[in-house]
């Protein structure tokens, strides 16, 4: 049986006390243990940023890559070995600034990744610049007049791009966060989980106290239909005093990308023995040029 202790790493986190990343880290480990995935059966892929150090603090296969390139690297891993459950853990700068294009293409590709965005709505590791999810008007070192741009709406974008699983959770509710990751791990295609992650050092506005009275769980409403895309869009646009969390949208009737690749129907690629071409294969290739 897999337990949360199996994921214990000798490396201690460098996150600030109270950082929302602790809850995400714990939720990932709890969710993996709950579904019975051992450290060697998963791959945690991250980019660069405070949150992207998560794989370093976790005993599991991992790869800490480039800023913004988490998703394409993870896609390569998944296609090379879909026997591994691949999770991405990266921040809002990584996912929605440098990597936004990749996120949209991963969604329309429906590649089997659980993409967890540690969305603190600020740049932490580079010390306090505004991020793509910062509110319009946010004053920071690089937006002294207040941000002129509207924030990115990752839920609506993912829905528009054709994502088959779109959810939001937050670091203030470990159980909800864990349950959302568990649910995403059961999804066959691309699963986006945007996680509100309070940054206690650089973002005093979007704190635990900001979110706690505002968030409500979509799944508390028994009539909310996760397969209704228009309803999901409507909730994605809801913002202000009430902010929805939970699963906005989930459909299981679309094949994952890797399920459609002819070569992968025979099973994962990486474990296959690599052999020289057989004489009849060589002959067939040469015939094309005769």
């Amino acid at each position, binding site marked *: 049986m897999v337990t949360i202790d199996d994921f214990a790493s000798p490396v201690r986190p460098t996150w600030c006390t109270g950082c929302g990343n602790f809850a995400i880290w714990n939720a990932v480990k709890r969710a993996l243990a709950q579904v019975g995935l051992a450290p060697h059966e998963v791959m945690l892929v991250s980019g660069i940023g405070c949150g992207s150090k998560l794989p*370093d603090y976790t005993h599991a296969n991992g790869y800490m890559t480039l800023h913004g390139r988490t998703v394409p690297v993870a896609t390569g891993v998944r296609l090379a070995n879909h026997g591994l459950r691949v999770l991405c853990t990266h921040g809002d700068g990584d996912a929605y600034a440098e990597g936004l294009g990749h996120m949209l293409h991963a969604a329309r590709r429906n590649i089997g990744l659980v993409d967890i965005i540690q969305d603190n709505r600020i740049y932490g590791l580079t010390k306090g610049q505004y991020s793509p999810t910062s509110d319009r008007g946010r004053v920071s070192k690089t937006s002294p007049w207040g941000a002129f741009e509207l924030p990115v709406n990752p839920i609506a974008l993912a829905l528009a791009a054709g994502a088959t699983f779109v959810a939001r959770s937050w670091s203030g509710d470990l159980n909800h966060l864990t349950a959302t990751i568990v649910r995403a791990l059961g999804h066959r295609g691309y699963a986006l989980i945007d996680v509100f992650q309070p940054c206690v050092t650089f973002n005093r506005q979007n704190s635990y106290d900001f979110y706690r009275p505002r968030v409500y769980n979509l799944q508390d409403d028994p009539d909310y239909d996760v397969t209704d895309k228009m309803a999901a869009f409507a909730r994605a646009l809801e913002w202000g005093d009430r902010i929805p969390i939970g699963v906005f949208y989930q459909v299981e009737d679309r094949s994952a990308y890797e399920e459609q690749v002819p070569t992968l129907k025979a099973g994962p690629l990486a474990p296959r023995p690599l052999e020289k071409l057989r004489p009849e294969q060589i002959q067939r290739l040469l015939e094309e040029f005769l």
Partner: protein
Amino acid sequence: MQTVDDLIIRIGGEAGMGLESSGVGFAQALVRGGLHVFGLPDYHSRIRGGHNFFSVRIARRPLYSHTEPVHLLLALDPETVRRHIGAVVPGGAVVYDEKDGLPDIPRRTDVGYFSIPLAKLAEEAGGSAIMRNTLVFAVAAGLIGFDPTYIESVARDNFARKGPAVVDANLRVIQAGVEASRPFQADFPFRMEAVPGAPRRLLLNGNQAFAMGALAGGCRFVSGYPMTPGSPVLEWMAAHAAEYGVVTLQVEDEIAALCMAIGAGYAGVRAMAPTSGGGFSLMVEALGLAGMTEVPVVVYEAQRPGPSTGLATRTEQGDLLFVLHASQGEFPRIILAPGTVEQAFEAGWRAFNFAERYQCPVIVLSDHYLATSVRDVVPEDLNFDAVVIDRGELLTEADLDRLEGEYRRHAFTESGISPRAIPGHPKAVYASSSDEHDEYGHIYEDAENRRRMQEKRMRKLETARSEMRPPTAYGAADPDLTFIAWGSTYGPMREAVDRLNGQGVRARMLHFTDIWPVPQDVEKLLVGETIAVENNYSGQFADLLRMATGHTVSRRILKWDGRPLSPEYITHHVSRVT
């Protein structure tokens, strides 16, 4: 009538007229007829209009290069005559469409002008005026005395999947073309007849040879974004993916292309990303990720002239120093630059062995000239028997079962190579990082660790150096002139050396395919007068040699007009500089 050593036929017209496809089909027929060919496409970056041409050089001995003169010009529009009439040799001829006429084009008296109603005949015989591309090659076959049944056999094979009606239409068009040539045969002096019973030979270009070599070498993952002239490698792999167990995908950009290939390489699959210089520019950051995290991956970079969009459908060797230095920091990489179809095939499988043995990125530097020009080789020249799949220090399942203690992915070793475990084994759970890291892969900023880790990585380059092949020497053993060539200039340079030796100049070529790390003891070969010959503005390989060996070449013969070097260009400039 004279049978010539070399006969060059050039077809010209607008984009959309099917010049290259019919030209390659004709070249295929010539090869089936026992002749040797070298086919060179020249086209614009557009789908319709403009001026394109395809030249096929024909001989009874193996050919390695195109050359500049033309014996028979097949003009599908008057513009072709205007542009190329100057290249036609005395006694040569122009075939043009009667409907076009040759308005306002001064006629040469030493060249034959054969007016044939090409479009009309194609329409009558085949049902479509577009088929005059096939018809005009049948005219050419009639004029040079080449047995048209070889053209018919190619048409049968190429159009079989379109059904018997299409095949028959093509056969009628070929017959009509041969008939139309008869009145002019006595006026065309050059002959190149088929050689019956010659061994079967392949006709292919550098892209195809490289892709086949990569497949033979175990490449099983290809991600790319279309860009001339590299994308045919992705297309070829996609066409063979299901049958040979390859995963191919077209992705959103070249950043994703290389990142995915790196992800696949990390997970244990031989992976590559084919592109051209512009796409490679986007891959630069990811290249460093592969260097830092010691992931095997191959980039195929088919160069075209830059900067920026440059000349999208033309050739240059302008990216050498860029790929050598691309990405921040210092890390080992290996660069191969094949010069022929045979070398492109070899580079295909060698690249993947280097990538896995040294756990680093390998760049195969091709260019438009090598990528798109077609040449015939005997099947044995693509040496599948020599293919080796050497995965280097890759830990087997049994090795991993026996593993004691925590696995160290980036263990310090004498060779710099750390035994590699593919993720998925319970005893080798690790996370590697693009941050500087310790032996386990954990982020670690300690100065002593950094020093040792950087030394470990860079040591791999020294280990690899001993495996790099020395340049191929060709020509005089005791030369007065030593030409230094690399990559695709092999063919033109080789023929220039032959011509110079024929003229009594003792000339020798040193041709490099293994570019970086520079092979050992190269400086011993660089004696006497050395001339760097490169298809770029500055002589980048000459600069690289000076950096690596201290040798300064005596002269440089360079070309940067977007067109390939020819034997004539080289010999002309030798006489100018000596």
